């Protein structure tokens, strides 16, 4: 026991002190922040390419100059030919021609943009949205419709689940969306943890094999102690990193929210969303305070006393289940890193597939796919934490936990058997046949 503690300690302290750890722990939240800022910035980015347009409006719907970030458009009465020549002489960038409608009963309308440069997607989308609204306006007028009545045709629909049995909690309409997003997020976190720390274990094991210290260690401690010490040590490093991030990421995000508006970037409100929704999409409400209130309320209403322990269980279970496999892998392969990658892909495959399954689970949290994939030990760590939000039957949760625990015992046994033989095999390629033989060696 004392030996295993020493191994854990060495694994932990040398890693936590390394430049790599310090850098990645600091860098990760910053990279995270940069990604968010970049995503927001690129979504709200409007190119410097500003179009000077004139519109020949036979419908009579454009009555004044329209100015947006993308274009300036002036109504005109000049003949089209004159305008085309102006385009040729580069006095303007283009002419938008809105031909007359014969009848308001059309469902297809084509407008023409006379220009020598190609309109980009942003311009096309924006023009199409505007023309669509103008046509609507035109139809309202020519058909003599009541504008207020027409606006009543647009209805936002939501489904509010209501419990039938008394005492069951009433949920709001956003509950499902929130649960789904949270479910995906939990599965994704475990997916990342398995891969990131799994490959750390693998490298750590193969490092000892490559630098040949392993024979000295193995003459002092049992291979199993060495392997478990390593896995637990790396796991402790992972938890440390996670704790640091749990503290730093919110601080950084909060700080960013305070500072970034001075640079013209809004976090949270979503400039892109407001841009699209305000006048162009009708009835698409930007997130208002009520909605935020509702989301917070729903989040608070979730059964965290169940979700958190279950998440922690599968967080550790997923780590250990795959960690032992990655350790065996690290012991079996030598210096050929290409081989390492190929093998780690094989081990990683069930995790990747689980992540795809997680999406199906979100769609149908009580479907048979969701039930079985949350019970099967190789996929349970990614699936069950997400599924627990949808409150699956208790027997499924317990069965999944028991099977996952058994899975850990089984894979630890398998890995330990491969590890103890493979770690001392130099210059021998680890074929699947060879692995199978090592497994059967008493």
């Amino acid at each position, binding site marked *: 026991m004392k*030996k295993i503690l*020493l*191994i854990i300690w*060495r694994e932990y302290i*040398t890693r936590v002190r*390394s430049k790599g750890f310090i850098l990645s722990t600091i860098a990760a939240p910053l990279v995270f922040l940069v990604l968010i800022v970049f995503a927001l910035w690129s979504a709200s980015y409007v190119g410097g390419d500003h179009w000077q347009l004139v519109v020949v409006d036979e419908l009579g719907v454009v009555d004044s100059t329209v100015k947006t970030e993308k274009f300036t458009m002036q109504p005109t009465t000049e003949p089209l030919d004159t305008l085309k020549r102006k385009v040729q002489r580069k006095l303007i960038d283009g002419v938008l021609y809105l031909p007359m409608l014969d009848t308001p009963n059309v469902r297809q309308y084509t407008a023409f943009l006379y220009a020598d440069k190609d309109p980009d997607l942003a311009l096309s989308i924006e023009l199409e949205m505007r023309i669509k609204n103008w046509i609507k306006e035109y139809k309202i007028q020519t058909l003599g419709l009541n504008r207020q009545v027409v606006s009543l045709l647009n209805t936002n629909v939501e489904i509010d689940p209501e419990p039938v049995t008394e005492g069951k909690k009433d949920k709001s309409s956003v509950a499902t969306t929130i649960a789904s997003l949270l479910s995906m997020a939990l599965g994704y976190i475990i997916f990342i943890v398995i891969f990131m720390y799994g490959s750390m274990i693998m490298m750590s094991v193969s490092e000892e094999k490559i*630098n*040949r*210290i392993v*024979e*000295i*260690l*193995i*003459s*002092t*401690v*049992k291979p199993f102690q060495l392997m478990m010490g390593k896995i637990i040590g790396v796991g402790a490093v992972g938890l440390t990193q996670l704790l640091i991030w749990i503290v730093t990421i919110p601080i950084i995000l909060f700080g960013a929210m305070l500072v970034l508006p001075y640079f013209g970037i809004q976090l949270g409100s979503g400039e892109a969303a407001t841009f699209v929704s305000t006048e162009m999409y009708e009835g698409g409400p930007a997130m208002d305070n009520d909605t935020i209130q509702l989301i917070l309320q729903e989040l608070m209403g979730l059964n965290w006393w169940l979700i958190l322990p279950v998440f922690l269980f599968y967080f550790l279970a997923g780590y250990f289940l795959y960690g032992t496999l990655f350790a065996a892998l690290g012991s079996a392969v030598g210096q050929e890193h290409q081989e390492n990658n190929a093998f780690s892909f094989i081990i990683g495959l069930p995790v990747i597939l689980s992540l795809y399954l997680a999406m199906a689970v979100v769609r149908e949290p009580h479907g048979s796919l969701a039930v079985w994939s949350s019970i099967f030990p190789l996929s349970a760590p990614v699936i069950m934490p997400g599924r627990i939000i949808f409150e699956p039957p208790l027997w499924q949760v317990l069965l999944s936990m028991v099977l996952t625990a058994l899975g850990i015992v089984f894979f630890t046994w398998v890995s330990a058997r491969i590890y103890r033989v493979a770690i*001392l095999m*130099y210059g021998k390629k680890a074929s699947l046949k060879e692995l199978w*033989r090592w497994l059967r060696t008493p």
Partner: protein
Amino acid sequence: MLEVNRITKIFRGHKALDAVSFTVPQGTIFGLLGPNGAGKTTLIRIITGIFMPDAGDIRLHGRPIVGMRYHKIGYLPEERGLYRKMRVGEHLMYLARLKGLSRTEARRNLRYWMKRLEADGWWNRKVEELSKGMQQKVQFIATVVTEPELLILDEPFSGLDPVNTNRIKEEIMRLKERGVTIVFSTHRMEQVEEICERIVLIHQGKKILEGGVLEVKNRFKKHLYRIVHGEMFLPAEVTVRLNVVEEKPHEIIVRVEGDDVFSVLSTIVEHRIPIRRFEEILPTLNEIFIETVTQKAVTA
């Protein structure tokens, strides 16, 4: 005293070791010899407890140690390395404490050994900053820091310059005098001749030779003697009376059946030939090694 008793190890139907037995008396340096793939590493791994034998047992001072990873064994493997990113002191502390030393014991012993091997300034240096020879010294310190009863050294001098080779050799001799039993494995036969008192030769998993170094040499001797004399060549009436194997100016090598050196000497003295030197030619361990191993290969 280390007793290896009928150790057998089978890998996939192949006998890596076949009932190998030998005894290493306490306080001797014992050569464990054999060509590549003979089973030396397997045997060492069984003694250190890394492998379990399929049959046989091993005792150190009468105590069975099979599969024990006995902490009073110091093992310097041929394939050895260190964590490159760790500091020397911390690294040595780790290895010493894994062997069961307390923090204070470990630190005290390490200070002693680092001073002895002129490594006292290295405590805070990173392993990767040390030269290969320096790293070898660190590994040697890690092996002896626990004051082992049995020391197993596999090619301990590889990568060391002549000066450091001598330093380590001195330490090995000193440990031997203090009663440490030492198993020394190498392919460098001149080193074996120099420091080993007894040897065992393993080939294809079997013991094919065991004994004291001088005794083994005598067993393999070809009864050859070298006579260095004052004449350019010996007269024919002398050489006909000798079994000449080779003749050179001032030197003749003869085979003396039954080691009857007196008749040889009297023949030469009779003819009043001045003798500068007269010596028995014993085979080197290298010759014995090659001879036995190739012979076995032919018979096999």
